């Protein structure tokens, strides 16, 4: 069954199928199946974000129906935010909101360990499991290659009984949401350890192999990169290195994108407690590049953000109308593109690979597609 995902270039490298059993492992940034398993409805298939999902059931389980939007999922509140500590903002990405929230959750004992993407010099990510401020800060900053975070979650949930928080990309958030629908007592116990999901806006990730090759061609030493960013309005990937800032034209980077990302509908991590991205307001980039966009989705997420404000860790302000509009437009664009790519791959509008043609969101944007086609 998993072969249908792995062999079809649909695998996002989220790691949900790893550390459940001895058959799947992550090697560099590839998901490898070592042996053939003939179970048809195993957990790997159930948790994988690229197999058919009952999205309606998930939405019902996680969110309040009044909050749901078709473009960007559940929205309790939409803000600009940033960490109060300027030092933190320097080392993390944009407003450092993710790091600030995760630090707080650890400090307050809401979680015992956090799983974040690791800062591996060779872009070989394994998901870092951290328990303290220093470790988190070491791993802060956006990575543009995939981190098999859910594999790390699977491992911690097995070895440890503590509460866990995870920084997740959209596909990873979906995988962990699917785990909440699990069937056995053991599986339920494991996913119940998951107390917090901080989602990340995501457009795509890069294949480590291709990206590394590209950087070598550009004579950029992997070890020298401190931070990576995509400045709004410019068509480049910006790298901050020990030897100053370097930029790579975006179309060269585009060639390194993992194929699986082309088929993804979710740009804002719709299945998280909160989702964080860059305050991308093209006009005033220099002003807002120090801020994050913050979507609060669940009660738990709201409680954490309120706590962060009360504790003086996080600064939150109203986001301009324009920003929300732009965000929604970008999100819709991704959904439409994903459907276009899926139909191109499957060869037929009737075959949406892992998506359900009856799902209202899918239907809506498919309809748009169909109308546009006409």
């Amino acid at each position, binding site marked *: 069954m998993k072969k249908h995902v792995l062999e079809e270039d649909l695998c996002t490298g989220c790691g949900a199928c790893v550390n*459940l*059993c*001895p*058959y799947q*492992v992550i*090697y560099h940034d*590839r998901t*490898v*199946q*070592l*042996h*053939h*398993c*003939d*179970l048809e*409805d*195993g*957990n*790997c298939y159930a948790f994988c974000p690229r197999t058919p999902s009952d999205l309606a059931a998930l939405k019902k389980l996680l969110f309040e129906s009044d909050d749901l939007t078709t473009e960007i999922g559940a929205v309790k509140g939409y803000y600009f935010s940033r960490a109060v500590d300027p030092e933190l903002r320097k080392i993390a990405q944009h407003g450092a909101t993710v790091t600030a929230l995760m630090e707080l959750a650890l400090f307050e004992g809401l979680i015992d360990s956090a799983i974040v993407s690791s800062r591996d010099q060779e872009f070989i990510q394994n998901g870092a499991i951290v328990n303290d401020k220093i470790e988190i800060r070491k791993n802060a900053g956006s990575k543009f290659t995939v981190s098999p975070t859910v594999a790390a979650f699977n491992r911690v949930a097995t070895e440890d009984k503590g509460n866990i928080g995870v920084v997740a990309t959209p596909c990873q958030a979906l995988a962990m949401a699917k785990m909440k629908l699990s069937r056995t007592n053991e599986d339920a116990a494991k996913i119940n350890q998951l107390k917090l999901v901080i989602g990340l806006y995501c457009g795509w990730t890069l294949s480590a192999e291709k990206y590394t090759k590209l950087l070598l061609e550009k004579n950029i030493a992997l070890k020298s990169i401190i931070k990576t960013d995509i400045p709004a309005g410019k068509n480049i990937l910006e790298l901050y290195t020990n030897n100053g800032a370097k930029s790579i034209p975006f179309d060269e980077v585009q060639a390194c994108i993992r194929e699986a990302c082309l088929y993804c509908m979710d740009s804002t991590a719709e299945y998280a407690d909160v989702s964080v991205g860059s305050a991308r307001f093209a006009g005033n980039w220099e002003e807002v590049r120090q801020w994050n966009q913050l979507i609060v989705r669940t009660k738990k997420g709201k409680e954490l953000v309120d706590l962060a404000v009360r504790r003086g860790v996080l600064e939150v302000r109203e986001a301009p109308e324009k920003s929300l509009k732009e965000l929604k437009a970008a999100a819709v664009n991704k959904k439409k593109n994903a459907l276009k790519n899926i139909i191109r791959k499957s060869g037929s509008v009737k075959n949406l690979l892992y998506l359900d043609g009856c799902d209202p969101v899918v239907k809506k944007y498919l309809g748009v597609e169909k109308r546009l086609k006409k």
Partner: protein
Amino acid sequence: MNKLLSPAKTEVLFMGNEAIARGALEAGVSVVSGYPGTPSSEVIERLAEVSPERNLYVEWSTNEKVALEVAAAASFSGLRSMCVMKQNGVNVASDFLLHLASSGTRGGIVLVECEDPGALSSVNEGESRYFARMLEVPLLEPASFQEAKDLTKWAFELSEKIRNVVILRSVTRMSHASGNVICGKLPEKFRTARFISDGSFMDPLRGPVVSTPVVVKHGLQQKKLQVATELFEKSPFNNYTGPKHPELLIITSSACFLYSKEAIALLGLQKRVGILKLGCTWPLPVKLLKKYLRLTDKIMIVEEVLPFLEENIKVAAMDMLKETGIKTFYGKMDKTLPSVGELNPDLVAAALGKIMKVKPKSLPAGYLREIQKVAPLIPPREQTFCPGCPHRASFWNINTALKLDGREGIVCGDIGCYAMASLFPAIGFHTVRTLHSMGSGTGLASGFAKLEAFGLDKPVLAVCGDSTFYHAVIPALINARHNKADITFIVLDNAGTAMTGFQPHPGINESAIGEPLPAVDIAAICKAIGAKVAVSDPFDLEGTSKILTSFMAERGSLKVLIMRQICALSPEKKGKKQFQMKVNEELCLGDNCGCNRLCTRIFRCPALTWDRIKKKALIDEVICAGCGVCYSICPQKAITRTETE
């Protein structure tokens, strides 16, 4: 006392190979060489056992070509010698055999080749009888256990009469079956070796031993064959049994004689069918043939595997057409008998029955019904590696490395127990992609690796065993190194020639008779060739797959990984368990998600059994070898291992 040394006139139960060995002893053989190959190996093993008492030198050579050269040297020095191999060993020895047959020999030298029709223990059912015809030397085929002894003894006499090598051909059902043999005398005197080579160039007994001048020597060689033919005409090893005026004449040799006898009895055709059994099958004794071809116009030729006799007899029959008349031949060429595979009495009876229009008595209906009821209950058994076999762990590591590498690497297989990884893909974890002859895996890999320029850009690996390494792999490895073929070469070193019965080889520091010999180190040879060499214990799954994965990722050089772990059946290990293994039922997930029977469904050591009622894995303590590897693969750590004292 070793039964091979039984006194004259005693009747002993001998395996065919033992009978051949006894025949050689009675002929006073001094030097015996060969390479292990089923079904021939016992000839050398038994002779090795009695070599001190019989003043014998017995050697397991690195390959059949060298073995024949060793035996030839003895013959040139006036000693009687014998070289033993399986059917495709003759292919390996054939270049030297061609030249040996031309140069001629001195002391009697017999090449014993034991064939495997139906490929019961081979990956081919090649026919080496044609070498006799092609290389123009006499061919003998014993058709009973007594003949296996007597014909071998006579072969040495024949060889000395014509001063050339004689081929004696056996098959599995002759070599490995047993029968009563009446022993002859064992000689009391032993020969001394003297190599005289300073005589005149054209003197076959005193001059240098060369195959030149070629055309002249060739002519002499053919004259020798004529001498042999004359002897065959009067030989007691060719004989007829049956009615004076048979309706059908069966001409046969080797084990097929026994099948034919049985078929005739099964069909009750003793009064209608006669058998001409040939023990001397090349050159054909044509005068004898003419005599029996006159008996009837219907001739059936029963042989395996290829129609060697049939073709030769038909040619001879054409020549004597005017005197014997036109014959109808039944055999392989007209599909009366199957053209491939092993024969047996039933197949021969079916064919014979068709020709003679007699139906064999079929089994009673009730018996057939019982068979049909029981047959589905017989559990299917596949061939697999023994419990504790290092190859299972080695292929596990190879599979892991291939999958992590992700480029669909090509693994070329070779001959040995590990050949089963090609024959039964599941036990090799579906890794091996080619299988041919000794050493061919490395040669193929050397070729595949140069195809990158043509678009084939995949990692190329070759596996071979320690014995195979010395036999044929070294030239291929040198080829790979010199021609910059980027291959990852894996030696499965289990300290012996295991598949054929754990005979020693040059990597082992002892001889065929257990005397100390210097071992030749595989790692040193590979290093000298210029390869990057690493040694690892395949039982260390993590460590070994790590090295292998990194070797595969390294491009542009020859990498050799020696996976070293002794065979589970070796004398050091057999019967002794390093670990006591047990499955903790509470931790075992069985066929549930999270494991789905990794140990019994994928790893498949025979000692790992599946308890269908409890739905848990269970270790069969009787056949478990205690190697401890399954401890490393269980995801739940449900398989425990404790060191035994």
